């Protein structure tokens, strides 16, 4: 094989998981556009981004957590709890700024508490965030009395209201900002590099002089901050705090991150992969919603399609590994 051809093949192999998920997304688009010609219209695409803004923001944190070899199941419940607290504070004081500070503050507080237990208490992240997922939702139901709390604030609504054309709003800016910050942290700072190192081998990282506990703490605290922001975004879009906000968000985020090709066992990962995974998940959710199916059918189809996509992703990964071996043996 000539050097140029080899370089070409190496590049394809390197980006094979991304290519696979993009291909699968293209298949989805072809299918949905057949059923609904307006699927790729500007208004529907705008809709997809706006509806899934919270998911995208949460996924940024989840990417860090997954790359470090951990798991965060608390984000969905944290969103509903902080949204409800914001609603309660607004109802009591009428001050939306206080409400928004409460939202971010509570998200940070609970997530740093979890982070401390995970990093310094050395308790498994799955268990800590799982228990948080349960009690936070319970608390949210408790403080609202299981009723929705309207938050009729013009300031809050401005996050969602477009101010330039039909597309550009603060939500969109926040999404881009969070993604950008996440990308910068992962690729351009010590924090990101240590996240990767911990995911690959925590002991080696420790022996190399990395303060692994502090990094782990930072990862979960960062994920908490993003959850707070996501909560505000969703609250603004819906206009009221309802108990169903953020339901299943943590799982959707994990699926998006993994389906894009990030390794669930940690070590490998990038924001390009997360973005592709998100694209697939968002197209799928939106497309299924436009088909006018029953809820049961939507769940069934969504789950099955995710399963098939994961199987294909796994298959392409096996091929990738075989090619890698062939290339290396030629050395």
């Amino acid at each position, binding site marked *: 094989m000539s050097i140029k051809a080899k370089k070409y093949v190496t590049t394809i192999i390197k980006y094979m998981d991304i290519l696979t998920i993009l291909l699968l997304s293209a298949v989805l688009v072809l299918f949905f556009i057949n059923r609904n010609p307006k699927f790729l219209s500007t208004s529907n695409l705008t809709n997809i981004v706006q509806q899934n803004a919270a998911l995208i923001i949460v996924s940024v944190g989840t990417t860090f957590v997954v790359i470090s070899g951990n798991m965060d199941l608390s984000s969905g419940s944290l969103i509903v709890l902080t949204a409800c607290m914001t609603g309660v504070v607004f109802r009591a004081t009428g001050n939306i700024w206080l409400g928004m500070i409460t939202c971010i503050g509570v998200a940070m507080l609970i997530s740093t508490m979890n982070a401390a237990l995970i990093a310094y208490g050395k308790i498994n992240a799955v268990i800590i965030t799982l228990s948080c997922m349960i009690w936070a939702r319970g608390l949210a139901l408790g403080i609202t009395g299981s009723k929705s709390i309207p938050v009729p604030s013009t300031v809050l609504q401005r996050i969602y209201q477009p101010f330039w054309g039909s597309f550009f709003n603060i939500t969109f800016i926040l999404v881009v900002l969070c993604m950008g910050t996440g990308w910068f942290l992962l690729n351009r700072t010590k924090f990101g590099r240590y996240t990767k190192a911990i995911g*690959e081998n925590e002991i080696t990282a420790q022996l190399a002089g990395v303060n692994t506990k502090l990094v782990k703490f930072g990862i979960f605290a960062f994920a908490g901050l993003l959850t707070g922001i996501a909560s505000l975004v969703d609250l603004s879009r819906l206009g009221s705090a309802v108990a169903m906000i953020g339901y299943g968000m943590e799982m959707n985020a994990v699926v998006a991150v993994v389906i894009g090709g990030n390794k669930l066992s940690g070590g490998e990962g990038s924001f390009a992969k997360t973005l592709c995974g998100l694209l697939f998940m968002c197209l799928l959710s939106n497309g299924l919603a436009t088909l006018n199916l029953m809820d049961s059918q939507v769940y069934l189809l969504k789950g099955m399609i995710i399963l098939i996509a994961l199987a294909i992703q796994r298959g392409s990964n096996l091929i990738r590994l075989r090619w890698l071996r062939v290339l290396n043996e030629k050395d």
Partner: protein
Amino acid sequence: MKPILEMRNISKRFTGVQALLDVDLQLFAGEIHSIIGQNGAGKSTLMKILSGTYTADSGVIYINGKQVQISSTADSAKLGIGIVYQELSLLNNLTVAENIFLGREIVNGVQLDNAKMSDMARKSLLELGIENIDVDQNVEVFSLAKRQLIEIAKVISIYPRILILDEPTAALTNEDTRRLFNILFKLKEQGICIVFISHRLAEIKKYCDSGTILMNGRVTANVRMNEVNELQIIEYMLEDNFNTFHRKWRTKQHKKQPLLELSDIYLHNQVNYVSCEIFPGEITGFTGLLGAGQDILWRIVYGAQRKDSGEIRINGKRVRITCPSDAVQFGIGLLTENRKEEGLFPEMTCQDNIALPSLKHFRIRKYTPLLHNRRIRNSCNDLAKRLSIKMRSLSAKVKLLSGGNQQKIIVSRWLMKDLDILVFIEPTRGVDVGAKTEIYRILESLASQGKAIVVISTDTTEILQLSDRIYIMVDGKISTTLNEPTDEETLARLIQGNPEKKVIA
């Protein structure tokens, strides 16, 4: 000349084993010093004390004449001791430059200065004379030899005064070894003291300046390499045969059918067309240097490792073994060298550990999932008695047992299955002397019951004491088959891989 580092009267005891006893070591700047000894002689323990992984029970360490305390890896790094570990400690998902600078990144504000780090990494590789390594590539794409060089570059980049290399050449070819030493010579000229650990005497003799020879945790000699020959080194390494176990060599007293035949087993770069025969009622020994392929060969036979080609026959019939459960079906059992990771369920009880693979024989009735617990207990008790396993009770956790007893637990596991072929990889590693003899006796009695026993060991004394037939492997090939007894020096020589000097006076 004054030594740069001096260790005096270092002793270290692990439960039941005296790993080091009153060991003295002197290292001089600008020298390549070798630590020589058989497996379990205490080389690694000594180096781990120097690196701060272990602390010595007694003894003192001086650096440049000043007494120092080394109680953690951070301490040793501060004192200028750099270690290249036996298992590579590079992170595969990071690039070469990222690995070299892990934990001490160069930053520009909050932003990593990747360009500068890449530059410096490139420079430090070039200083070592290493070319053809793209520092912005992930480590995983490089060959083992190159990774070894990267690892050295990583350690060198913190400018150590003492550089320790723990078996860096075990997986390297001769060509790569020569390149490695060219680099080490350069470092030596800069006044760095290099400690080199290897099993390959030819290398040690050729490249090192001096050496300390250990045997059973004691120093037997300090040598200058230009004053001794390999044979003398071997003599210092080998223990006098005070070991009580002696087995009569039973030369081909029978003309039996081989139970297991391997023909042309091949795995790229690891095992090179190996053929051999295993007979029932015999102990067959496989030996060679670390990485010569003897353990991989048997992992292949057991189905724990893929093979590229080759045939396995049992009782003359060709069998297909693709996973360990196939092998067990055909009557092959394997005991790995790392009991904790691959052999035992440390948190489970002795009984569960013994009976786990045989549970289906203990069903109350066929086709019912219920187990007959009393029968399991009884038969475990029988086995424990037969092998004299010392444990508080069958329901004690296996992790509380000593190494020798843990090994016996695994043996009894396969005895319960009643397998015909038992493969032991390093059966006495991490086992104290008393239990060693006991395990030897068990192996012997199993063989006399007509089972085919295969022992894979890098310990030449052990191989000689146990085997009826010895296969010696060098670079993935069987270089010599010994059908009659030999002395330890010949064997040690053969393992080093120069069969043309087969006869030593």
